[in-house]
């Protein structure tokens, strides 16, 4: 039986049986939304949502997570390939479309982020691989007339008495059999691919210009759109004279949309040139009066005057402070930041015959489908959403206002639309890492024990804005009024009742103390906020590690020994610090170079970093960073190294340069000349040491970032005696 003529019932039976296990959770309701978005190859066999095997032994893996540079196609391909017994390099790895089976098991929706992919799919994809292998072994046993126990497998082949038969030879029989649901998984000692540092499977496509990103999509009759938006978030278009743009070559439409005014032309450059001719007039909003200095003043006022909402209250903080030999208290500042992925936001939407297609590199393709449906009126099941490679994301590609824009333009112009943001749009009209003012007051005894930890953060929260962006996408049926109500509710809840955890995560957890309080004061200025690589940890680590250095100094202890002393309740972090200490003791920095240390736990992973720094005049130069990481089993150690290297660079850009300044509600920076990204000549050498571990994988994409800014600040203190408590780091 070929899959082409496989009956729906048989299809559901096969998928249902394979997916019957707890970890997979297939729904077999038989409704149309349950159809897998898989293009069947001739005679292709689809045993479950993740695999298709063809008689010529083509093995396709439908990768449920989005590839934004973190190596997820290689990583998840390794998990399923380990148990299926196929090397990931011998699979064709495709991006999965929209289907409930592709949900992130940690999130319950199809989303990629939070350093979650390998952790969330670790058992699920291995089980799918093992079950499918079990099915193929049973089919081979039947076809070859041997006992299943006489069969082994190796890299896409059934092996019997030394003879190799490709898996594809048995797919017809496999389609008639019931697959096991709980095939045994390998022990760690049996791993063939997990733990091996082989090359990324997408490296060749990405080294030859053949990897297809959203910006590269090109379909017949496609027109290009460029949007002019208000420089102040949320300000609506008041008026625009379209004449000048409409008379430009190639221009077909000038359309008012929810975010501004769009120019449509046959080619991008025509649209871009014509859009520059527009002089739109924008309404004023409250944010239009706000400058950076107002935000700083509002935060400082709140820090001094408002108690805020209690997040954590353990022990007796006053008693803890009273027993301290020394008390330190300091405020730390972190600015708004843009993500600036190198591929600017873009999408392609085609609406034809009551159906739609959307192509975009997103961190949640289901959201792109939902937005196209919502803004075109086309039912969800008639919207095909196609993911592409993402030219960087870092949290930015979870917010898809560009998909809304593209849909609105496609509907109004009645043309397939490719809509592309400029770099200026990206930096000035985006969603941002929230600015934060943090204060920690802590007590320490002369023996190095921390007696009290009183922390407070002032700033905006990311969850309400994220709900505002995600709810229309994930619940296309909900009306605007309901969404506004729920967003407003979440805003009120986080301002007055409970703390948005992302706002304070990392500010207080790592070090031992019996007496601890965390308060949060929400101050919003209508600036759109969202996740930014390592989220709250990206700023809280700076305050937490900074104050820890100051406590160590008061106690007269070495800062690393002090951290060892105060991580007794946190053995994995303690071990990472201990290993880092050994490396640090062996280092002999050259004259004029200083070593700074920091450690941080985030996304279930522990990281310590040692930065070798020199300061000449006002220039901070980071020469080398040594990074020690415990992320459980390193599924591909080379990708773990790459993510640590990348996180260090990303964090250094923020530590040394990252700043956005607001004037009359508009961000003043516009491109890489005034929002600089670390360059090769400024990049340190990075050495990564991975702690050997047999436990399940934890996060890798983000945890390398939080320690770098405080590690550099610590080295700067040794070089100059200056405690820098404001990001980006500037020598006074």
């Amino acid at each position, binding site marked *: 039986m070929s899959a082409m003529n496989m009956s729906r019932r048989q299809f559901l039976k096969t998928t249902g049986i394979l997916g019957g296990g707890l970890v997979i959770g297939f729904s077999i309701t038989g409704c149309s939304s349950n159809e897998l978005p898989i293009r069947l190859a001739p005679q292709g066999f689809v045993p479950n949502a993740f695999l298709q095997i063809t008689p010529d032994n083509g093995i396709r893996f439908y990768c449920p997570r989005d590839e*934004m*540079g*973190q*190596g997820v196609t290689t990583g998840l391909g390794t998990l399923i390939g380990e148990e299926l017994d196929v090397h990931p390099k011998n699979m064709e790895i495709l991006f999965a479309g929209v289907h409930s089976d592709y949900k992130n098991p940690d999130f319950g929706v199809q989303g990629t982020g939070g350093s979650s992919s390998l952790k969330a799919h670790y058992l699920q994809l291995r089980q799918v691989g093992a079950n499918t292998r079990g099915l193929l072994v049973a089919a081979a046993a039947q076809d070859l007339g041997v006992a299943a126990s006489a069969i082994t497998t190796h890299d896409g082949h059934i092996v019997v008495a030394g003879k190799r038969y490709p898996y594809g030879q048995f797919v017809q029989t496999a389609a008639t059999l019931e697959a096991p649901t709980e095939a045994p998984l390998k022990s760690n000692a049996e791993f063939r691919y997990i733990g091996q540092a082989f*090359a*990324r499977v*997408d*490296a*060749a*496509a*990405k*080294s*030859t*210009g*053949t*990897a*297809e*990103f959203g*910006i*590269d999509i*090109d379909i017949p009759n496609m027109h290009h759109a460029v949007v002019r938006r208000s420089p102040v978030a949320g300000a609506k278009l008041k008026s625009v004279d379209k004449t000048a743009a409409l008379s430009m*070559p190639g221009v077909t439409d000038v359309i008012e949309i929810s975010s501004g005014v769009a120019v449509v032309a046959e*080619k*991008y*450059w*025509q649209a871009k040139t014509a859009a520059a001719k527009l002089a739109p007039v924008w309404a004023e909003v409250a944010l239009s009066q706000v400058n950076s200095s107002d935000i700083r003043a509002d935060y400082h006022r709140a820090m001094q005057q408002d108690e805020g909402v209690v997040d954590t209250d353990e022990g007796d903080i006053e008693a803890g402070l009273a027993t301290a030999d020394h008390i330190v208290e300091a405020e730390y500042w972190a600015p708004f930041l843009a993500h*600036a*992925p*190198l*591929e*600017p936001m873009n999408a392609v939407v085609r609406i034809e015959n009551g159906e739609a297609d959307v192509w975009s590199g997103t961190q949640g393709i289901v959201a792109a489908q939902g937005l196209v449906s919502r803004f075109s009126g086309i039912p969800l099941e008639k919207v095909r959403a196609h993911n592409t*490679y*993402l*030219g*960087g*994301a870092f949290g930015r590609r979870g917010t898809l206002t560009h998909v809304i824009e593209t849909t609105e333009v496609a509907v109004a112009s009645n043309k397939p639309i490719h809509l*592309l943001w*400029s*770099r200026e749009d990206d930096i000035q009209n985006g969603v941002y890492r929230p600015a934060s003012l943090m204060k920690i007051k802590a007590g320490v005894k002369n023996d190095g024990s921390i007696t009290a930890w009183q922390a407070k953060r002032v700033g905006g929260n990311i969850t309400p804005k994220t709900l505002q962006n995600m709810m229309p996408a994930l619940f296309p049926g909900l009306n605007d009024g309901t969404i506004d109500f729920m967003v407003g509710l979440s805003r009120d809840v986080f301002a007055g009742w409970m703390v948005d955890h992302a706002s304070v995560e990392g500010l207080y957890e790592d070090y031992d103390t019996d007496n601890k309080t965390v308060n949060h004061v929400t101050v919003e200025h209508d600036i759109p906020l969202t996740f930014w690589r390592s989220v709250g940890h990206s700023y809280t680590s700076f305050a937490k590690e900074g104050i820890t250095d100051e406590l160590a100094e008061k106690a007269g202890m070495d800062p690393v020994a002090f951290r060892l002393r105060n991580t007794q309740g946190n053995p994995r972090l303690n071990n990472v610090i201990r290993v880092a200490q050994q490396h640090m003791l062996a280092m002999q920095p050259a004259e004029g170079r200083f070593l700074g240390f920091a450690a941080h736990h985030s996304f279930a992973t522990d990281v310590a970093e040692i930065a070798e720094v020199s300061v000449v005049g006002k220039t901070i130069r980071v020469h080398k960073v040594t990074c020690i990481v415990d992320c459980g089993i390193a599924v591909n150690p*080379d*990708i773990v190294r*790459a993510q640590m*290297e*990348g*996180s*260090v*660079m*990303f964090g250094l850009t923020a530590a040394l340069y990252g700043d956005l300044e607001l004037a009359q509600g508009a961000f003043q920076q516009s*491109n*890489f*000349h005034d929002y600089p*990204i*670390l*360059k*090769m*000549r*400024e*990049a340190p*050498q*990075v050495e990564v040491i991975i702690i050997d571990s047999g436990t399940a994988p934890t996060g890798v994409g983000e945890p390398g970032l939080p320690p770098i800014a405080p590690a550099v600040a610590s080295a700067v203190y040794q070089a100059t005696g200056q405690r820098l408590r404001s990001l980006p780091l500037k020598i006074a």
Partner: protein
Amino acid sequence: MIEFTLNGQTVRTDDDPSTPLLWVVRDTFKLKGSKFGCGAGLCGACTMHIDDAAMRTCLMPISAVAGRQVTTIEGLGTLDNMHPLQTAWVEASVPQCGYCQSGQIMAAAALLKSNPSPTEADVDAAMSGNICRCGCYGRIKGTILNVAQQSLAHNAAQEQKA
């Protein structure tokens, strides 16, 4: 009508002469390997070779390339026939998101052509106009230096044979 050579083929376009080469290559000639990152010559994602020099093409009008040789990443090597830098890029798993890599490789290829044995400082100088937001700099630099060293060793061996 402007005529130039694109990856060895003579091409003609009636795009407006002020249109940047990047957009003519992407939208008119449908070669998508060269990327748009900043539109201001600041990031290097759009790097191509004009004659033998690495140039930013997001600002360069096509009028400036009339009669000249333009090479894009597609002309440097293909999946089946990679340039030595591309092979080395794959072996070292240089790319993360990969978006900047066409520009990085084109800049690196131009460097090695003009300076077959660059020092680390030479590589820094030649490559610091190419931004990698994922931070692959260590691998990019190490791979360029390795390829240079290997090709020097290879050439020395060839000379000895001859």
